[in-house]
Structures are given as C-alpha cells and as structure tokens.
C-alpha cells in the first residue's frame, strides 16, 4: 500500500505533536552542547506548519512538503530552520504533483532531502548532526527497497536506523554547528538535531503502520 497525501498530512500532525511533547527533552540535549533552544525551535516551527497546512487536505504531497519547508525556514530561528527547511523543500520537489508514494518514491524523496541537508550545512556523515540520523535511515530505506519489503516495513527500518544513528552520535566529535565550539567536550552527548530527525522519521513509520 502506497503512502497517500492523507498519510503525509497525518505524519505532519503527529510530528508536530511528538516534537511538542519532546520540546523539553530536545532543549535539554541542546543545553549540553548548544544553546538550549532546539526543542522550542522545532516546536515553534511545526506549530506554524500545522496552521499553514490546516486547509490543505486536497493538496498533492509535493505542495504539502514545500509548504512545510518554507514555513520551517521562516519560523524555526535556528540552524535547524534552513536545514529542515531545505530538506522538506527538496522532498517536495522530488514528489511534485504526487498523491501517493510507492517505496521507490519514498526513498527518492529522502535521498533528495538528505542531499539538501548536506548542501545547506556543508556537512557529511560523522560530524554529529542530523545527518547521522538521516543518512543511516536513507541507507536502510535503499536496502529495504532492494529487498522489496512493504512500505510499512521499509519505514520501520528507516526509523530504526535513524534511532541507532542518533544513539551513535553520543560518541561522535562535533565538527559542524554550535556543538563544534565545545571541541572534545562535545563527545558523550546525543545530538539534538539527530534526535528530532529520528522523532520525525519514527512519526512517519508510526503513522503509516496505524
């Protein structure tokens, strides 16, 4: 069963709720290696998203995701704004005009998103950023697609790999963003952006599973 534009809407709603619930947790992670605002940044951004897409039940997936992107860029207020903003904009471009997505299209959508984050942040895997959740997730998605597993399973595997990637950021040295100001002291802390990325991917898997 493909992912529909309704699913995407529900995903965005669930993400908003999950990020709201995790506001304090994300901010606490950011207080250890950043400026203690990632939770409020994401909460503010997704609150704005939910308002913006409230009347968009009939919109295609590309239009929806592009709206998310521009809204996040305008409202998040931290580095994660341009990063998630670019990710959703690119995801929207990859899904322009579509009402539903098959496994291959989902993987292509995330590939575009990850390329966007890399380009925007001039970062790569292993720098203790959201990419360390997104890149393993994308790899898992590609593998799942090769194995032709159902979409629900594909999304579960992506979320699971994002979660492992997120946990692996604890041992990484930050070399991008504010956490890099801490140098060696950034080691031992979980990256807030990788954590919000996992939450968002998990929300997608949960939405489609239910």
């Amino acid at each position, binding site marked *: 069963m493909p992912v529909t534009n309704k699913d995407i809407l529900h995903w965005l709603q669930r993400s908003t709720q999950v990020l709201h619930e995790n506001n304090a947790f994300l901010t606490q992670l950011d207080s250890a290696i950043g400026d203690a*605002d990632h939770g409020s940044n994401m909460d503010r951004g997704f609150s704005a998203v939910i308002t913006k897409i409230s009347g968009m039940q009939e919109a295609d997936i590309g239009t929806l995701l592009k709206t998310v992107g521009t809204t996040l860029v305008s409202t998040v207020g931290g580095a994660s704004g341009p990063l998630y*903003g670019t990710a959703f904009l690119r995801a929207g471009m990859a899904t322009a005009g579509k009402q539903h997505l098959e496994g291959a299209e989902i993987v292509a959508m995330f590939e575009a998103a990850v390329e966007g984050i890399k380009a925007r942040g001039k970062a790569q895997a292993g720098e203790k950023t959201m990419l360390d959740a997104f890149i393993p997730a994308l790899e898992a998605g590609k593998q799942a697609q090769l194995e032709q597993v159902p979409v629900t399973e594909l999304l579960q595997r992506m979320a699971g790999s994002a979660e492992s990637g997120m946990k692996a950021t604890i041992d990484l040295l930050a070399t991008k963003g504010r956490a890099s100001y801490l140098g060696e002291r950034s080691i031992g802390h979980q990256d807030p952006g990788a954590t919000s990325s996992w939450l968002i991917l998990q929300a997608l898997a949960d939405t489609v599973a239910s």
Partner: protein
Amino acid sequence: MAVSIVIVSHSARLAEGVAELAGQMSMDEVTIAVAGGTDDGSIGTSIDKVTAALQKASNPEGTLVLLDLGSAVMVTEMALEMLDPDERQRILLSSAPLVEGAVLAAVEASAGSTLQEVAEAANNGHEMPKGRWS
C-alpha cells in the same frame, strides 16, 4: 553612493549595537541595515529580517554582510538564493569578526571604496589593536 553593510545577528540588541557603533564612524554616508533575532523577538535568526535588511541595503555599489556566528550563514544564504542573480552578485558574505569588521567596513565604505576593498577592510578586524598598543 557608498557600499552598504548588513549586520546579521542572533540578537536584535547586538545587531543594533553594532550598527550604532559602526554608524558613528561613517555618519550618514553608509547604509547599515540590521537583521537581528527571530520574528517573535527571541534569540535566533529570521530569513524575513535578513531579506528585508538586504533590500534596505540594496544599492549599485554592493553590500557586505557580516554575521555573528556560523549558524547565521545558512539563513543568509537562503535569503540570497531568493534574490535575482543580478542583485545577488552585488552581495558578499564576510567571515570577519562582527564588531571589529563592521567598524572598519563602515570607515572604508564611507571613503567611497569598492565592495572588494570594504570586504578586505573588514578582514583587518582580526588585527584590530586592543591591548598594549591601542
């Protein structure tokens, strides 16, 4: 007409303070536009504020953008991507230290120098004397 300066900061007060300090050295000759804080006034950056500041500063001689922290670069680059290419090529992002670079850039711009010269002057902010030999 003189090269303009745009100050992008996570703090509105910081941006305005830099503009008032640099503005003292360039009088009314140089436009110094600021983009500080988020839209709702908290600490962070705002693409709408950056876009508005770039518009306010826009002029044929060009604009030098100075920023407080690396994380302001991404939002500024997104704002630049939204401009038309003609406008965009008249804008340079500086990696100079914000306060020191802005003061020196304002001095240089008020002398009618080119964008390239103003950018170089800003980079001298690294060597601004602040000590035994001020």
